C-alpha cells in the first residue's frame, strides 16, 4: 500500500520524509496529469505521496533586503499580483497555463518538474535566483542553475524539499520575455526567449539572456554576456552576427509533437536578434 500523507506543518512533513521516500505534491498540476488514469477516477500514485499544498508555513511571499522570497506552495497567480515581483516573472506567469491552473501551480513545482520548457525557469536563471532546500536536519541554499541538472533531474535529495525561492531584485532598463507556444493559453513552450539589459548613458552595464525549451536545461551563458558588457548599445548592435554565432552552438532543440528543431533554433536566434536590434 502506498501512503498518502497530508502533514500539518513543514517539520512534520520533513519528519515523514526523513523516514520514507515520498513524492511531493504542491499544486499537483504536473503530477496529476502525469499520473492520470481514466476520466473521473483518481490519479494512480504508485509511490508514497505527501501533499504540501495547504501548509501555511510554505505559503508566503515577501520583500526583504532587495530580494523577493517566495514560499514553496505560493501559487503563481498570486506571485504575479504581488507588487514587487519582477516584471519578467509577471510576464512569464501571465502566459503560463490558464487561470484555473495558475491558482494552483507553484514555482517550486516548476523547478521540481525540471522541464526544459518550464516558463518561470529562464526568469529565475536571468535573476540568479537561489533556492532554499531543507531536510529534517539540514538546510542549504543553491543557485538555480545548480538545482536543475537535466531533463527531470534536480539536485534535491529524497529527504529534501524546496522551502523557498529567493529572487534578487535587479535594475534593468529594458526586458523582454517572448514565449512561442501553439496558442495563447494552455500551451507548453516551443521555445522562449528572455532578455534583460541595464543601459546607463548609452553603455551596456549588464546584459542577461536565457533561452527555454532549446536544450536539456535553460540556456544562460555568463561568459558570452560578460564579453559584451561595457560596450555601447551601438557597438553591441554592430556585433549582432558575432552574438548570434556565440549562442548558436548552445541552442540544440529537439523535434517533438510541439515543433521541430529547425524552427525552434531559427526562432530563438530571430528573437535574440530582434531584442538586440531594438535596444
Amino acid at each position, binding site marked *: 500500500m502506498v501512503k498518502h500523507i497530508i502533514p500539518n506543518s513543514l517539520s512534520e512533513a520533513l519528519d515523514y520524509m526523513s523516514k520514507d521516500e515520498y513524492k511531493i505534491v504542491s499544486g499537483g498540476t504536473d503530477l496529476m*496529469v502525469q499520473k492520470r*488514469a*481514466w*476520466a*473521473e*477516477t483518481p490519479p494512480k500514485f504508485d509511490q508514497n505521496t505527501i501533499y504540501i499544498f495547504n501548509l501555511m508555513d510554505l505559503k508566503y511571499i515577501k520583500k526583504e533586503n532587495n530580494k523577493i522570497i517566495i514560499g514553496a506552495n505560493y501559487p503563481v497567480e498570486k506571485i504575479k499580483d504581488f507588487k514587487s515581483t519582477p516584471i519578467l516573472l509577471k510576464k512569464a506567469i501571465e502566459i503560463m497555463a*490558464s487561470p484555473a491552473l495558475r491558482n494552483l501551480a507553484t514555482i517550486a513545482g516548476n523547478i521540481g518538474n525540471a522541464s526544459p520548457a518550464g516558463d518561470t525557469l529562464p526568469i529565475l536563471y536571468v535573476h540568479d535566483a537561489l533556492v532554499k532546500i531543507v531536510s529534517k536536519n539540514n538546510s542549504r541554499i543553491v543557485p538555480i542553475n545548480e538545482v536543475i541538472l537535466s531533463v527531470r533531474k534536480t539536485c534535491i535529495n529524497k529527504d529534501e524539499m524546496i522551502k523557498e525561492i529567493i529572487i534578487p531584485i535587479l535594475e534593468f532598463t529594458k526586458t523582454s520575455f*517572448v514565449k*512561442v507556444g*501553439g*496558442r*495563447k*493559453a*494552455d*500551451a*507548453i513552450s516551443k521555445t522562449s526567449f528572455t532578455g534583460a539589459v541595464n543601459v546607463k548613458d548609452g553603455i551596456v552595464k549588464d546584459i542577461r539572456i536565457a533561452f527555454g525549451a532549446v536544450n536539456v536545461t535553460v540556456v544562460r551563458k555568463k561568459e558570452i554576456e560578460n564579453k559584451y558588457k561595457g560596450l555601447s548599445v551601438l557597438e553591441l548592435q554592430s556585433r549582432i552576427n558575432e552574438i548570434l554565432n556565440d549562442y548558436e552552438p548552445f541552442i540544440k532543440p529537439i523535434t517533438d*509533437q510541439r*515543433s*521541430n528543431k*529547425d*524552427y525552434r533554433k*531559427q*526562432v530563438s536566434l*530571430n*528573437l535574440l*536578434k*530582434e531584442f538586440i*536590434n*531594438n535596444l
Partner: protein
Amino acid sequence: MKSVNKTIPSIDGKGLMMGRPAFTDDLAEKNSLIVKVLRSPHPFAKILNIDKSKALELEGVELILTHEDFKRNSYTRAGQGYPEPSPHDKFVLDEYVRHIGDEVCCVAAVTKEICEEALELIKVEYEVLNPILNFEDAIDNKSIIHDEPEAHEMFPIGFEPKRNIAASYKMEVGNTEEDVKKSDVVIKQSFYTQAQAHVMMEPHTVNARIDYLNRLVLYSATQTPIHVRRILSQTLEFPLSRIRVIKPRVGGGFGGKQALHGEMLVSAVTLRTGKPSKMVFTRKEVFESSYSRHPMRFDITLGASKDGMLETIDCYVLSDTGAYGEHALTVFMVAGSKVLPLYNKVKSVRFHGHVAYTNHTPAGAFRGYGAIQGNFALESAIDMLVDKLGMDPIEFRDKNMIKQGETSPIFAIMGEGTEGTAMNMESCELEFCLNRGYELINWKNTYPYIQVSKNIRRSVGMAIAMQGSGIPYIDMGSATIKLNDDGFYNLMVGATDIGQGSDTILAQIAAETLGCDTSQIIVYSSDSDLTPFDTGAYASSTTYISGNAVYKAALKMRQMIVREAALAFKVDESIIEYDGTTIKADDKEMTINELSNRLYYNEDQKQLTSTESYVGTKSPPPFMAGYVMIDLDTETGEVKIVDYVSVVDCGTTINPSLAKGQVEGGIVQGIGMAIYEEVLYNSSGKLVTNNLLNYKIPTRKEINKLTTEFAKSYEDSGPYGAKSVGEIGIDTPPAAIANAIYNAVGVRITSLPITPEKILLEMKKREGEKR
C-alpha cells in the same frame, strides 16, 4: 413579425446554467453497470485468443463480451437514412482490429475501478498485421483492411474492398482536359487537409435499462435518435417496437454524434444482464475511438482566359476514411457538390476520386462535411490563379461567381450519394456579401499588406462559400402540435437539439404562425416513442426541413382553432378574426384559454392535435464571404487573427443571436482547422494528439474580434424565408487565412494546419530562391 427574426434567449439556457439534470449521464440509473472497452494497441491485427478467465473471477465483474458473443451482422455506425450510402463494414465486435483504439472486447462491472482492473486482467493474443498508415499508399496495397466476406455496399457507391477503396465517384460536364489545353492561364496544385477532431464538450455518452414493459430504453447523446433505434434493431436483431431512444440535452455534436458509438455495447450488456448500464467515453476515446474529419488530398487544375474568366475546373480527390467507411462517399461528394457550383460560369468541370481505407481512426460526419476541405483547395487555387492573372481577388470572384437567379449543372448531377436536384438560386446575396465584407475589413487600405512594425505584417485574405439546406427528397422532418387546456401548446419534434438551439427557433416558428408568445410553446424533441419522425440534426437541415414541418403543423393548428371557434360562436369560419390570444366574430369574443377549456371540459369535447411533415424538393444554399485580417510575425511565423468578418446570406435569421452563434462558432472551429489543430500520428500508428493539451483548439485568447453580419435575404421555400446556418460558418477560414498569409509574405501553404513552422520554412526557402 412578432416571434421570428427576434433574439430571445435559448429556451433551455437558464435551466442548463442552473445545473438542472438534463444531460445523458445525469439521467443514468444510479445503479448502472459501468461499461468499458478494451481497445486495440495495434493499428491492424487479428485477435487469436481472448483470455477473460482472470477478469471474470474479479468480484463485481458482471459480463465480458467478445466477438464470439455476437452474430456476424455487418452494419455501419454512420447514422444515416436507410439504405445508407456507407458500406456495411463494421461488426459490433470483430475478430480483427483495424486501428489503435478499435474495440477488442467490453467489460461490464459495478464500478469504474473494477472495470479498469478487469481490463488489465484480460489477456489478448494478436497476430499483428501490416498496417496502412499513409492514405496515399492505401489503394492496391498488399494489406487488405476489409477482407471479410460480409462487408458490402447497400447500393452502388464504388465499393472495392479488395483494393482498399470504400467508395469512388466520377462526373464531368464538358471536356476539362481539352479546355485546360485551350486556357491562357493554368494553375495545377495539390492541397492536403487534416483529420480534424470535433472536440464537443460532452463526450459520447449513453445508458440503457429495461423498463416495466420489458422494453429497452436508451438515453443517448446522439444527433440521430431515430436512426440509432433502427440500426440497433437491425444489428442486434431485437424488435424495433421494443426499443425507445431518448435524446436529452446534448453538449455539442458537430457531426460527431451522428454516428453510433457506445449504443451497441450498452444495449447488449443491458439485454444480456437485464441490468441498467452506462458508458461515458474518456477524452482519449473521443479522440482515438470515435471519429474525425476525413483528411483529403485535392489535385486541382484551373484554367482561365487572359481577361479573367474561369473556364474549367478539374478536381481529383483522394479521401482517407480510416478503418471504416462511415460517410466515405457522401463527405467526398460534398467536397465537390457544395464547392464547385460557386463558379458556375465555367465551360467544363470534372470531379472524381476515391475514398481509401487506412488503419487510422475512422473519419465521419463533421460540420462542413467535405465542403470545408473543398473550399480550402478551391479558394486557395483561385487566389493562385488570380495572382498569376495579375487581377484583384474580389474583382475576379465578382466576375465568375454564382449570382441570384442563376444555376449550375452540378446541382442536378451530384447529390449526397445519389443524383442531385436541379435548382435555381432564388435567394443568393453572395454579391452583397462580397462587397460588404470588402468594406468591413478595410480591404482597400490593407491589401495586400501593411507593415505595422519591424516584424509584423498586417494583411487581409478572403474566400467565398456555400452549403446546403438538407438533402432533397431524403431528409424528412415532422412536427406535432397539441393544444392544451388553458391555451398553451406542446410542440413535439423529431428534430434534434444538440446545443445549437433548434428547440428555440422551432418554438419561434410555431409561435409566429400561431400568433402566441414563444413561452406558450413547450417543446419536446427527439424521443422515438413520443415525437414524430425526423432524420436528425445533420446536413444543415433542421431550420429548413424541420422548420417547414413546424410551420405547416402550426398553420393547421391555427385552422383547427378557427374551425372550433366558428362552431362555438355558430358563425361561418370566414368571419373569425384570431390574433393568437383573442378570437373575435362580430361582437363575440373569446380567448384561446376559454376556447381550450371549453373544448376539454365543457362542450364539443375534443383534443386538438395537428401533425405535418416536410421533405425538401431542393436544398437552397446559404452563402457567405469570409474576410480575415491577420498579423503575421516574420520572426516567429506566428499568425494572429486580428478580425474575422463574416457576411452571411442564410435567408431570414429566425433568431439573430443564435444564428450569429452558429456562424461565429463555425468560424472559430474553422480557424482551429486552419492554423491550430495539428493531428500527429507516430510511426506505429498511434495518435499523439489525443488529449486537449496536445490537440490545440483555439482558446478565448486566440479570438480577438469577430464581425458578423447577415445579408437581407428571403428564401421563398424556407419557413419565414429561412435557409440553413449551422455549417456555412466553418467553410471559409482555411482558405481565407492561407490567402492572407500569401498576401503578407508571398508563401503559399497548401497543407492544413498552417503552422508557424511551415510558414517560416517556406519563407526561408523563398529567401534562398531569391538569392
